[in-house]
Every structure is written in C-alpha cells, then in structure tokens.
C-alpha cells in the first residue's frame, strides 16, 4: 500500500514556522527526525503509516522550519514540540525519535510527561559515558562519515541514502541543506553532547522502548543500559548487525518492533483500566 503524504507549514509563534509532513491511517503518532532533517524516503515511516497517522515535524533550524534562534537548549526544544502539538490540537500520543530526534523525544517525555503515551528512543544522543565516548562526528571528513553511520557503508541502503543528485545545482542545494542541518545539530550536540538529560530521565513516566543497532559507531550502544537505568519504565531492544542508520538498515524489522511495542503497551493499559 502506498502512503499519501502531505506537507503543511504551521505557525507556532511569530518567528517559529514549522514544516509538518503527515500521512497514514490510524491513531496519531509523532516521529522526530534525525541529524539531517525531514525524511521523504523512509520505508520505516511508510510501514508505520500502515497503522498510524505519522506526524513528522521539522525541528526549528533544520531546512523547512525557522526559529532556531528562539531555542538554545534541548529542554527548550521539548517545550517547542509541546507547543506545536497543542497548536495542532493533539493530545497524549506515542512519540518515536531517532538519533538527535530521540534526544528531543526523551526531553519531551521528561518535560511534558502528560503529552507522551509511549516513548520510543532509537539510538538517542543525550548521555555521555567516559568509557564509551560518543564519536566526534563534526571532525570527520565527508568521505569518513559513511563508515560511522552504517554497519555496512557499501550496502544498497547506504548508497541510496547518501547519494547526491547528478544535477550540479541540485547538488549544491542538497549540500547546503546538509550544512544548515548540521549547524542546527551543532547547537545541541557540539563538543560533549550532554545537556543534562541524565538529571531529567527520572521524570519520564511513559512506557519506553530503547532500540539500538549493536554496531552503532556514532552513539555507543552501551548507552542503552544507562537509558534503561534512568527510565524506570524502559525496555531495551538491540538490533544485530545494524549501525546508527538502523531505520534504513532494517526498516521492516524496526517498524515491526515499534508496532508490537505500541500494541503491547496499549493492551497493558487496557488491562489495567
């Protein structure tokens, strides 16, 4: 089944205009994107859209949305996402985040617990471990990045996602978009990517799934245990043979994992009521 996606701009505040992409059938679910911004070619999201209306807002500062100057810290990003959901008339709902988006999702669940029914953190940034330091990906050269983003940088999935358009003008646009995105990323992850999330994890009350590719070279999978230790309601799933780009390396498996977690949580909630 092909999903029909549509994109709209939502004015959250005077200087905060947010691009939102939505599609699918079922109860609403928020997806918070990773380092490079909006996903327009994601089998993972297409699969999720089979059972949910998937709502994908572009974070302020990433291509498509404005207002990064109003947001300095991940906590402020969480407040913004809360505002956006309110603007859209959305209440309590599942929140799925990947990479930096998972860090924002965790912050949202900590700062606005009433808005998050279930939380899925896929390879989240946000914690630091001296024994397992997060890679300084800002100092990697472009040709080095793939081996940190993928378990197999030569896989079809990796080549397809990393490919630049043949047209030189379009290529400039894509590269500029990546630079804009990485500038926004730097605001939240520069240096030591720890902005105090560890202190707030205890506030997360939603049932939480922490999923991680066991070959992630960007954000060490060992951090999964730290998330699990900090979030009382968390369970951990490890995806064998996957790197940081797990959603593209095993899209169907990831979607199945998320769907079954959400279904289980729903059933448990029903049982306790």
């Amino acid at each position, binding site marked *: 089944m092909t999903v029909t996606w549509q994109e709209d701009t939502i004015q959250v505040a005077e200087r905060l205009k947010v691009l939102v992409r939505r599609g699918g059938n079922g109860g609403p679910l928020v997806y918070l994107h990773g380092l490079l911004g909006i996903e327009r070619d994601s089998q993972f999201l297409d699969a999720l859209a089979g059972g949910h209306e998937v709502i994908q807002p572009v974070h302020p500062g990433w291509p498509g949305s404005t207002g990064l100057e109003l947001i300095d810290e991940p906590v402020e990003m969480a407040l913004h996402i809360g505002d956006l959901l309110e603007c859209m008339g959305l209440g309590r709902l599942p929140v799925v985040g990947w990479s930096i988006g998972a860090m924002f999702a965790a912050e949202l669940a900590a700062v606005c617990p009433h808005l998050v029914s279930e939380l899925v953190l896929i390879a989240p940034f946000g914690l630091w471990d001296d024994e397992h330091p997060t890679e300084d990906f800002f100092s990697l050269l472009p040709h080095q990045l793939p081996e940190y983003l993928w378990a197999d940088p030569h896989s079809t999935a990796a080549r397809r996602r990393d490919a630049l358009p043949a047209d030189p003008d379009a290529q*400039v646009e894509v590269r500029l978009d990546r630079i804009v995105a990485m*500038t*926004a990323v730097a*605001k939240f992850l*520069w240096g030591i990517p720890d902005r105090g999330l560890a202190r707030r994890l205890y506030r997360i009350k939603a049932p939480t799934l922490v999923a991680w590719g066991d070959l992630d070279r960007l954000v060490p999978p060992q951090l999964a245990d730290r998330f699990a230790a900090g979030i009382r309601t968390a369970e951990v799933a490890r995806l064998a043979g996957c790197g940081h780009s797990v959603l593209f390396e095993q899209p169907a498996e990831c979607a199945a994992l998320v769907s079954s977690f959400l279904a289980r949580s729903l059933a448990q909630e029903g049982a306790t009521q």
Partner: protein
Amino acid sequence: VKLHFFHLMPYRLLPSDFSDRYRSVWVDIPRDLYDPVEGHGLYHEYLDELLLAEELGFDGICVNEHHQNGYGTMPSPNVMAAILARTTSRAAILVLGNSIALYNPPTRVAEEMAMLDVLSGGRLIAGFPVGTPQDTCVCYGMNPATIRDRYREAHDLIIRAWKEEKPFAFNGEFTKLRYVNIWPRTLQQPRPPVWIPSGSSVETWDFALQNDYVMCYLSFTGWERAALNIDGYWRRAAELGVDDNPYRLGFIQTVLVGEDDADAERSYGEHVQFFYNKCLHTWPGFVDLPGYRSIKSIKAGLIAWKPPVEALDLSWQDLIDNGSIIAGGPETVRQRLREAAERLRVGQLMLLLQVGSMPPHLVEKNTRLFMEEVAPHVRDLWGDYEDRWSPRPILNRYGTAPGAGRASGDLRAIAT
C-alpha cells in the same frame, strides 16, 4: 608604512617527519613531542628576538594566541606581552590578540589589557580576533553556531567597560554582570587602538570599518593570493563611505633577506620549507565546522568550489612564485615588498622573520638585514597619511619616548 615584528613562537624542534606520522600540528598534536627543557630555552630565545626587534627600530612587536598548537606556543599572549611591557620602552605592543569570545567573563580581557596598557606606558594595541575554528570551537569547546554572537557581545562589553566612568550593569545573552567596573583604567583614553585580525569574512570587514578599527589580514600564504580579497575590503570601505587611509589595513608577510638571492635560499630555505610543508599540517576536520561560516559565504564558496591545491613539498622557488614568501637579497626584497605594500594599500606591515625551524642566529641575521637594508627603502611609503590607529608616543618613566630623551612629561596630561 609602519613595520611590526610578528612572532608565532613555534616549537621549532618538531621532528622532520612530523607530517607523515601525525595528522595535525594543532588540537591533538602529541603532547610528548614538547620537551619543556627545550621549551624553556625557546621562550627566552623568542623574547630576545622581540627585544632585538625593538632595539633595531620596529614600530611594533606582536604576540598572538593559539591553543594546543605546535607552530604557536602562546596560549596566553598576555603573559608574553606583560614581559615585553616591562622590558621594552618604545615599540607598540600588538596583542593580536585575545579571542574575546573565549573568556568568561570577557571583562577579564578588559582588565588584563588595561594592565598591559598602564604597565607599558600606553603602548598597547588591542587585537580582537573571532579566533580560528580550531582554537575557539575545538580546543575551547565554543559552539560554532553561536561563536560570532558571543564575540560581538564580548566586544560590546569590553569597549563599554573601558569607556564608562561609573559601574554599570550588563545583561547580555552570554554574560550577565551586576557591576562592571574595570580597575585599572587604560592609560590611552578613551581606549587603546583596536585591531581586528581576520581573513576574508565580509562581516568582519564591515565590523572593522564601521567601528574605525584596523583590519589585519592574517594568512601565511602571501600577498598575491590575498590581493583579490583585499581589493574587496577597499571596495567595501568605499561603499560604506570610509576613507582609504592605508593605515587602517594590516597585513602579515613572511620575509627573508640574505646578502644576495642565493645566500637567502642557502640560509633560510630548509627552515622556511619546514614551516610551509610541515608546520601548517592541520586536520581539515577541525576547520570547516557547521555554523562557523555564514550560509551566505558557504553558498558562494560551494558554487565557486574548486578542488584544494595540494600544498605539499613546495620548493623555495614555489614559495616565492606563489607569493607566500618575499625572499632574496636586499634589492629583491625592497622591490617586492614595496610592490606588495602598494598593491595591497597596506600601512601596517607585519613581518614574519622567524619562520619554522629557524635558529636564533639566522633570525638575527634576517632581522638585521631587514632593518638595515630594506626598511629604510620602504618606510617613506604612505608618508602623506596619518596613522590614527597606533598608540601615540606616551612618555614612560621606565623608558625613552622617541626623540624625547629621558621621560619628563606629565602623564596625566596625556592620559586625559
């Protein structure tokens, strides 16, 4: 034209195979390559070279700031400037500079520079660079996305702190201080001259021009490569209705003077090649950081993008041909230097005369030949213009003011 002696204070004993064995001279350079016993000697050697420069008549002597760096071992230029303030008596002391976005609170820079100005008898030139990405964002962890905002705020705070007569409150985005009240006051009033070390950032040109600061173009790749950029600077000055006084522009140039052309190559060749081929070896991943450059300048760069030139194994002649160095016998250097200064319209020439692994006897030779054989033939340039950006000669009870004999004047009259 004013002549300033610029010193990087390199660790000139790096192994000759450095660039083959390590990825960068900067940021993550192996610590065990630094031998502090040698370092003890090098610091004193370099200070002696700066003292000699004053003795031989340079208008200014320059120190600068680098962090975790093998070719610049002055993480705190103010430490060196303090020594120079005490041991020299005439030359301007150019601190080029303090990367003001790094210091929290930035009033620390206002305080230390005020100390230097008072100590030196009003000879300080205050350099305020944004700082390189390596120094500021990597070594000192500043966020590249906000470094320029921090810089502007620190600048506003320091300038105001020097100027205000009474304590004031400062509520910035990055610095919040209930009582700003700098003791001591600067001797130069209302403040020391401000020079802005920079490269080709249009935003920085505007900033320097609008505030009437000297813009110092700092690069080691020579005047020919810089010429197009500097043309842009002068065009921008005209657009903003600013005069074209050459003294509002500084430029650094590596110069090597021998008895004749062949002697220059024989004496300095290996040391200069060591600097250009080995010392400037830095990891590119520490340079182009997201947010450090504006999207506007990145876009211009992407559209005009050409593959970088492999700057490896440049010969002496390559370095002369590409303009990185001006080198040869006195007559060659006179002609080329004059040509460069006229072409760039530069009034503040900063000369790099100690380069790479050059030992002290060659630095002395180069410096003496420069001042005796070259300087007298270029100094008259721009004589019709007034240099409004250098310290006025202020009498100093610990030294001698130019042409004034032993100090006897009333400091108070000059300082107010």
